[in-house]
């Protein structure tokens, strides 16, 4: 498997950690302008990273939310539990 696959997936995890964390914060602080601004900036970067990954490899989301480009490769390995990130880091 292309090392870019793992690098890009890791980048998406990092960006989504930021949006997830701000999402939870905004749930209880819906009027916090600064958090909302940070959320939007991180979301732009996340969407861009997901778009690039899905164009190069396979959709990251089911049910038509993810971008299908290279045939029906939603079913392609590896599935999340099949990637041992410790072995990948060497």
């Amino acid at each position, binding site marked *: 498997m292309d090392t870019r696959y793992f690098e890009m997936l890791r980048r998406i995890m990092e960006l989504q950690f930021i949006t997830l964390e701000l999402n939870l914060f905004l749930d209880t602080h819906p009027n916090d302008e600064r958090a909302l601004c940070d959320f939007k900036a991180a979301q732009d970067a996340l969407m861009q990273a997901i778009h690039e990954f899905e164009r190069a490899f396979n959709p*990251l989301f089911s049910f038509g939310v993810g971008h299908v480009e290279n045939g029906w490769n939603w079913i392609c390995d590896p599935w999340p*539990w099949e990637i041992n990130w410790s072995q990948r880091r060497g």
Partner: protein
Amino acid sequence: MWVYQKMLQYPAGTVSTCNPKLAKAIITQYGGPDGELAASLRYLTQRYTMPIPEAKAALTDIGTEELAHMEIVATLVYNLVKDANVEQIIAAGMEGYYADHDKALYFVNGDGVPWTAAYIQSKGDPITDMHENMAAEQKARSTYEYLIQIANAHGDHAVTDALRFLWQREIVHFQRFGEVLNLLHDYYSRDHIFEMRGWNPYKVPDAEK
């Protein structure tokens, strides 16, 4: 409605792929009393009777994140037993589990006790539910601390790293639920609650008709 995302929330892994003894301890966060299945189902089922939007949102989003944690725990267990042979399974005291499930994932605690809905509560009183949730987050935090000690003793630094991520998420969830509790207290201290069918400031008036 939920949409699956084909990746883990955190790049979790294991140094050893044949350490069933460590897997046997970690599986409690899959199907044990303070595990991720219990957490997720507790929050997702409590949300229906929450009176304020902040509470509905926090329970939906944290309940969803807990599903992602369940997947991380499953990934650790799956990878820790993947290459174990029967002798290693027996040496780990995991033969009872093996007889029933082979190496498949099943919802049990470290001693093989199956998951039960009796682990969780959904009380209909939002204040009560939020106290339950804050306690649940603390219990999960404690469990991860014990598991980190065990993973350290096994020398599997990758497992320790993943457990540390899960551990710190419990602290964040505890914080968010504490904020929801305060918002609920604010909500109930307003006048309108004394009239049961009174005006709800969070509802669009038209929705009442």
